[in-house]
């Protein structure tokens, strides 16, 4: 266990040293503030709470941004160390390959969590303080859910990043595959679904199939989780029209995301164990 902790602290220190954390936090806070302030303009003085607007716009931002930074953090971790020669050295120490992956995962997740909580927290606080009706309990709950699920989304793509990194022979290959995977999950998948629905004209494919297809993509599960997290957010995002039977419970969505964290991590360990060093 102490070996994992040694690896975690090294990754965490590295993240602070190379200013990764401060940069990403600033970018997150900047984008979040910008989006929230712009997003709250059209609502004027409606009954919808400004924090709900923030949650909806931030979750749309997160779907693009968080997988990207998680993959950027993870893609280099195994193949990069292999190229620098430190991987061989590391593995001659009393650490297992599973410990190496877990140590990096916990360290990276910690960095990502700080960036998300601080970055989005700044934006959330700014919105809450500038709003007249202040801190409605319910929206704080959706905001907390946003933070937690964003960290979970980051964890999913960290795991996917390690799979890529453990399998790739060269850093450049790992980077290219990461970009491809990112495009697939955040853009192409949804475009494919839309194309499917459009070509079908809403006839043969029923809502359940689409729902299950969406659940298969962690980014979509994340979207569903946040956009239906309160009546306000559902209303804003157009999810209010979903009939009760098409809604997926919060707990199922969290479980899906957790499965999406576990599966790539296990796969990454398995691939890393077979890797020739």
């Amino acid at each position, binding site marked *: 266990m102490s070996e994992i902790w040694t690896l975690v602290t090294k990754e965490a220190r590295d993240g602070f040293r190379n200013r990764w954390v401060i940069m990403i936090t600033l970018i997150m806070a900047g984008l979040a503030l910008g989006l929230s302030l712009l997003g709250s303009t059209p609502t004027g003085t409606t009954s919808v709470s400004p924090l709900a607007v923030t949650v909806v716009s931030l979750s749309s931002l997160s779907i693009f941004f968080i997988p990207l930074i998680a993959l950027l953090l993870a893609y280099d971790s195994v193949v990069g160390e292999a190229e620098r*020669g430190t991987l*061989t*050295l590391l593995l001659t120490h009393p650490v297992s390959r599973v410990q190496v992956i877990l140590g990096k995962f916990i360290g990276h997740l910690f960095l990502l969590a700080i960036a998300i909580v601080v970055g989005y927290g700044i934006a959330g606080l700014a919105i809450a303080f500038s709003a007249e009706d202040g801190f409605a309990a319910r929206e704080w709950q959706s905001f907390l859910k946003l933070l937690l699920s964003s960290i979970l989304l980051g964890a999913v793509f960290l795991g996917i990043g390690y799979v890529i990194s453990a399998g790739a022979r060269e850093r450049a290959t790992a980077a290219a595959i990461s970009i491809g995977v990112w495009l697939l999950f955040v853009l192409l998948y949804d475009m494919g679904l839309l194309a499917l629905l459009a070509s079908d004209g809403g006839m043969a494919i029923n809502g359940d199939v689409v729902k299950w297809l969406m659940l298969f993509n962690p980014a979509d599960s994340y979207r569903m989780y946040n956009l239906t997290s309160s009546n306000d957010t559902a209303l804003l995002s157009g999810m209010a029209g979903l009939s009760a039977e098409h809604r997926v419970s919060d707990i199922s969505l969290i479980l899906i995301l957790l499965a999406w964290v576990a599966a790539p991590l296990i796969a990454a360990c398995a691939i890393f164990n077979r890797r020739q060093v």
Partner: protein
Amino acid sequence: MNSVPNIMLATVTKKYGALTAVDGVDLAVQAGECLALVGHNGAGKSTLIKMVLGLIAPDGGQVRVMGQDPLSPGFKEVRRTIGFLPEQVLFQNNMTGRETLEFYARLKGVSRKDQNDLFRRVDLLAAAENRISTYSKGMRQRLGLAQALIGTPALLILDEPTSGLDPASRRNVYGILNEMKLAGCAVLISSHALTELDDRIDRVAILNRGRLAALGTIPDLRRNMGLPTEIRIQAPAESLQLVAQHFKGKCRLNGVAQLDCATHEKLAFLKDLMALDIPLDNIEVRDPSLEQVFLAYSGQEGQGDE
């Protein structure tokens, strides 16, 4: 000292597809002994080292390190007693030298207190708090060596430890190896060529295309190879004539008399020469150089293969 050898290889073989990287190698390294693995690029040195470290599995034969199989789960404890310097290692640039050593010391689960001693031994104490990005190539190599010395290892494995070092640092490296050896550590180092090693190594194992071409002390290797010792005699012309007559057939004259003789017959030969009792100006005795020995072994084995 007649306990189990620190490293024991018995008919170890490793194949990569059609290529046999290591082919039936038998080798043992005792505590307090320094053995050098020598061979061209691709001779199988790194593959052999990786099998000793338990990074890859052999396809045949048996590897034992400190009496244990490097691939067994129990080998974890043995790893704490192994110091390793990879052939090429780029430590993280944004860490200081001290942080780097602390990281590896923590992984090994040894005290982090005696760091200054390690830095002093490799002449890096003044730069210990600097980031590695400011280190020169030689400093990085020396930091790597300090890293391998963490926790007074019982087995030291160094892959090309002197690459990129100036002659002074190189001498320092061999000095450290000698200290470790005297403290009872088994040392295994790899090198491109025999010439780099000086005579500071106890035994040499020459690898050629995965096979053990030769194993022994450097004087042994010289002798076994049967490379002749060359003797040059400078003398007045009439003396040279006498020499040529006496050693008929063996002697070449071109201003000086040049003779080849087997290394072990060298002394008898010189006695014979002295018995002639003729005026001589100078005698040069040249044993085969390490480079000649190395080339002879590599060449011989190579011809046998084809």
